[in-house]
């Protein structure tokens, strides 16, 4: 089943409340996905600083700090439950390599100049509390509540999947040709960390964008290359895009006001948003890319 949500603020009015809105939306979708939850919050882009969202798993924050400090001096660590956000001016090529080689016991959830990304197993209602999602501010965010089907209930199997700088994807549905697509993407240099079908879709999008396609064209291409059923929300530092497959058996509803655009699997996830009863509410058409 799974639930997906996204909110994009058109004005600055609610930036301080973004986390609170997204938290309520994930809460409302807990019924569709009680196994795990995750979310990405985008803030204004930093000029030089990169943010790396890292899941520490078993390792303690202090031990991680000691280890990473051996290699880079100027860092800032902020702790969120069992995740940390590492801020540094060091380029992704260096940090990604460093984490993989020297501290393989932690897993990188995502990185970029704008994105904060967290995910964890457990009921979404508990997960959002653990990460204190309500306290976040930002410009837009997407989230996911998972009912596991394609792979096990693990943090690695949770959404969103981020396979490139400031990009991430949440997915409701399942893909049937993900093994084939994964094999051809690996040949093309894309890395994967799980057996999950959504990670393949995220990798597909990153791969196309790295070749110079824009997000809209990439999603259009996915209609012919990805086989299965899906509603996708793909986040970037500028906003997010929404796509349902051409059969459209996976739900989505959009509510738009002058201040925000919200997307969710079901309306009940948006019922708490301000002025939602007077919002323009519609169901996105199959096979059409919407972006904000």
């Amino acid at each position, binding site marked *: 089943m799974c639930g997906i949500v996204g909110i994009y603020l058109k004005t600055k009015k609610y930036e301080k409340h973004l986390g609170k809105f997204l938290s309520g939306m994930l809460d409302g979708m807990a019924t569709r996905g009680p196994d795990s939850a995750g979310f990405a919050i985008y803030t204004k882009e930093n000029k030089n600083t990169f943010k790396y969202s890292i899941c520490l798993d078993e390792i303690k924050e202090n031990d991680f700090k000691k280890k990473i400090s051996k290699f880079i001096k100027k860092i800032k660590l902020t702790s969120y439950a069992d995740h940390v956000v590492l801020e540094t001016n060091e380029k992704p090529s260096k940090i990604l390599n460093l984490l993989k080689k020297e501290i393989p016991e932690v897993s990188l959830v995502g990185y970029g100049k704008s994105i904060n990304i967290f995910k964890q197993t457990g009921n979404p209602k508990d997960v959002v509390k653990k990460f204190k999602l309500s306290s976040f501010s930002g410009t837009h965010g997407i989230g996911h509540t998972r009912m596991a089907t394609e792979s096990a209930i693990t943090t690695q199997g949770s959404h969103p999947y981020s396979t490139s700088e400031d990009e991430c994807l949440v997915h409701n549905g399942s893909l049937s040709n993900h093994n084939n697509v994964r094999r051809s993407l690996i040949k093309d240099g894309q890395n994967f960390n799980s057996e999950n079908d959504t990670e393949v879709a995220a990798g597909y999008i990153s791969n196309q964008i790295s070749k110079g396609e824009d997000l809209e064209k990439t999603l259009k291409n996915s209609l012919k290359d990805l086989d299965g059923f899906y509603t996708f929300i793909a986040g970037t530092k500028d906003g997010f895009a929404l796509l349902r497959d051409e059969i459209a058996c996976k*739900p989505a*509803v959009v509510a738009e006001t002058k201040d925000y655009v919200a997307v969710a699997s079901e309306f009940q*996830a948006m019922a708490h948003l301000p002025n939602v009863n007077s919002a323009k*509410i519609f*169901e996105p058409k*199959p096979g059409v890319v919407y972006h904000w």
Partner: protein
Amino acid sequence: MNFDLNKKTLREVNQHLQNVDRKKNTRKFEILNPQGQHAICAGLKDDIDVTVKGHTGYYCAGMNQKATVTVHGNVGTGVAENMMSGKIVVKGNASQSAGATGHGGALIIEGDASSRCGISMKGIDIVVKGSVGHMSAFMAQKGNLVVMGDADADLGDSIYEAKIFVKGKVKSLGADCVEKKMDKKNIDELSKLFKNLGIKEDPKKYKRYGSSRNLYNFKIDNVSAY
């Protein structure tokens, strides 16, 4: 009588509406703060009048018998699904599978209806004042789907003996669905349908679509059954 879903559980409200005391004269009810909850007004079976003020979730007024339900908002998937009789009016848009498998009664959607509107309908009358999404009236068996706006791709795919009337454009017809002649009998039928539902509309502006009867085993001996 008012019910506020911020104060009462949906189960309490539905149970009350499903078991109306017939000795009392209270026949009008109002539901406030529906908050997109699922199955609001499902399984009503008496001649009562319910107004829902706000947006609802899935299967609103499903399995309805006799009751009139008016939703001042949008409805989620499967509004009036498997409805037997009565009347459901949606003031906003409807999500997919509106009126699915409906046996009787009338469903009026004042906005747009999404994909698969009237899927497998079995006798219900559905009037959509806006447009309908793709694969509407899929495998529709009996009843009327009337669309004042446009219909998206694959209208009436694998249709049986339901009738489709569309005033706007049809993007494409599904397998075994064809345009049919709109003769006097059909105009009179549609005119009667509009009149019964209190809708002022000229039936002559509509085109009719239905089954070409190549896909399923249609026997002319059974024609009186439709």
